[in-house]
């Protein structure tokens, strides 16, 4: 969709541009400037790339630690999505930040119902006291192993830190364990949960 108005006063950084390019690789931008006299674009190309908006936003968040106005405008220009529409998406999700990052890592601690019972509230206070940049988070989907923590990092993949079952049941998570995970860039090992319920049930793997 052309006729877009890009209002950001700053341009996207090199890192942001690279991140968006990687996120849309395989499809490429909507507009192809084949030569100075031949350009392809149009609604078909735009519609078949619309699903790349979220990957592009994730890529911007990871690369820069936030979704900057310049970065957002750049993603919108590549995908021909109106910036206002993209901003609506970007501002909806807790894990997308809209101010420049104040720390390299943001420690998201789930304080939803299950994790709260596992002491998330206290953990948040302790982590802050140790100088981490902490945000209370909506459910991170690790409810049996709470309190769940996700460390969102700039320029690196996210880390997950949860309680571990040492044979005697799940323990809790301490600030020290969080610090070790960040320092060594290690997520808590993932655990495969056994299939429960009727054997007729099928896991719907592979759905787009």
């Amino acid at each position, binding site marked *: 969709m*052309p006729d877009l108005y890009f209002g950001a006063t700053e341009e996207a950084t090199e890192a942001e541009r690279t991140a968006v390019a990687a996120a849309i690789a395989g499809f490429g931008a909507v507009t192809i400037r084949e*030569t*100075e006299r*031949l*350009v392809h674009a*149009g*609604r*078909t190309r735009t519609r078949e790339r619309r699903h790349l908006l979220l990957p592009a936003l994730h890529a911007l968040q990871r690369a820069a630690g936030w979704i900057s106005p310049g970065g957002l405008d750049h993603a919108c220009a590549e995908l021909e999505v109106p910036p206002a529409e993209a901003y609506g998406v970007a501002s909806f999700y807790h894990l997308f930040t809209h101010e420049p990052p104040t720390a390299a890592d943001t420690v998201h601690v789930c304080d939803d119902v299950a994790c709260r019972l596992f002491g998330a509230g206290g953990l948040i206070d302790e982590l802050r006291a140790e100088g981490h940049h902490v945000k209370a988070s909506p459910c991170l989907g690790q409810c049996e192993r709470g309190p769940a923590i996700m460390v969102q990092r700039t320029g690196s993949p996210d880390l997950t830190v949860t309680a571990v079952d040492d044979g005697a049941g799940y323990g809790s998570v301490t600030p020290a364990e969080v610090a070790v995970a960040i320092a060594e860039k290690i997520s808590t090992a993932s655990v495969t949960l056994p299939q429960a319920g009727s054997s007729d049930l099928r896991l719907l793997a592979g759905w787009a």
Partner: protein
Amino acid sequence: MWGSNARNAHPIFFHHALRGVANGARMWVIDPRRTGTAKFADHWLGLNVGSDIGLAHGMAREIIAAGLQNDEFIANATTGYEEYVSFIEPWTLEHTSAVTGVPAEAIRDLAHGYAMADKAQICWTLGITEHHTGVDNVQSLCNLSLLTGHVGRWGSGLVPLRGQNNVQGGGDMGALPNKLTGFQDVEDDEARAKFEVAWGCTIPSDNGWNLTQMFEAMGRDELKAIYCIGENPVDSEADATHARALLDRLDMLVVQDVFMTRTAEIADVVFPAALGWAESDGTVTNSERRVQRMRAAVPPPGEARQEVDIINDLAAAMGDDDWGQFTPEQLWEELRTVSPMHGGMSWERLEAEGGIQWPCPTEDHPGSSFLHGRLWERPVGGRRAPFSCVEDRPPLDELSDEYPLRLTTVRALDSYNTGVQTEHFASPIRTGEALSISTSDAEALGLVDGERVTVSSRRGSITMTIEVEEHLAVGLCHTTFHFPETTDINQITSDAVDPKSGTAEFKAAAIRIDKLVGAHA
């Protein structure tokens, strides 16, 4: 869209076009610039200014080479096909690419896409007609529709987008030097006789002059007086210096207008007119041949009067005082009796049906959603349609070492023509006063964005601001003509005329850009 920037110049029509796109239609835009319209396109082809006939011939030759022509339609509804095929034989994809600047593959894709589409329309405006080969340009497009049968049936066809809300209506009503109301020829004795009976007068049996011929006649001192209604030639004529000199030679210039235009300023008499779309009852006819009712919403201000009344009083003052007083409805009902294509459009039907497309010969006729359906009757209804062997001839204002850049004039969304109607309100998107130039040309000339320069052609020189446009084709410059008081671009434009239409080649001037005297590189 060929030579049309509908996004800017026909925004309402463009909404309809975009609905087609939303429903899956493919859109090609053929334009030297990647305009706002082109940005919506699946494919934009940036051809050289004035190379449209070449592109059309190249497309046609490729359609034939690929066997995609509609043999049945050609055999039954057309003439001149064999001659046309030989005539366009030199226009291979490679040759066409060399002449137009468009990659050969793109020409091939366009040709195949057009020929194989179930329904296809070619829409054009001034990019096609404002050339010294304007009529030939149009005929080269008609050839494509005849070649493929994309004419005379629903959804396919040839669509010239008219430039004012009622320019179609103006011509339909006979405000043309060679036509009476309803496209009947002045030089047709039978038609003329019918009007003479209805109007109780004698009508000259020869065609009059078109606008270009009128200016030539002014130059010969043959045309001494002009009654100018709703036109601003002081600002809108190409080679403005020359045109203004001619207007100054008139013994009498009467201007009838809504605004005090720069033409009105030099007039001997000015008749302030009511504003058609807000202050008058009547009809207008749009690009789809639809006649619609217009209704007065407010009375005209001050001394402004209905144009019909002004003309009526002028006739009486000239001694012809038996016209009587009449309402727009009465005028319309008389018109229906002399114009067969409007015959069935009663005032009530226009009101009730929200407009009717001509031809509508009888009151039970619904109006005509497309033309030329007769070409699909077997045997063909009426005359066969001819292929036209038109020559590709580049713009007359040639590029040279002295004038190495190609200037084309364009339109912005929120301004209109010479700015008379649009200059009085502020706009957040007002644009088009500057001369847009490519990054390479700016660098080569040592110019920076925003710099003031002298722009010259073989006809004159003006001062303009430069705007560097990142993806503009090297060698191409553009500007609007919406700001004549600050950027009098028609001092630069070429008045090379199409002898068949009288239209000037506004789209192709040769210019030079110089730094202002005293400025440093």
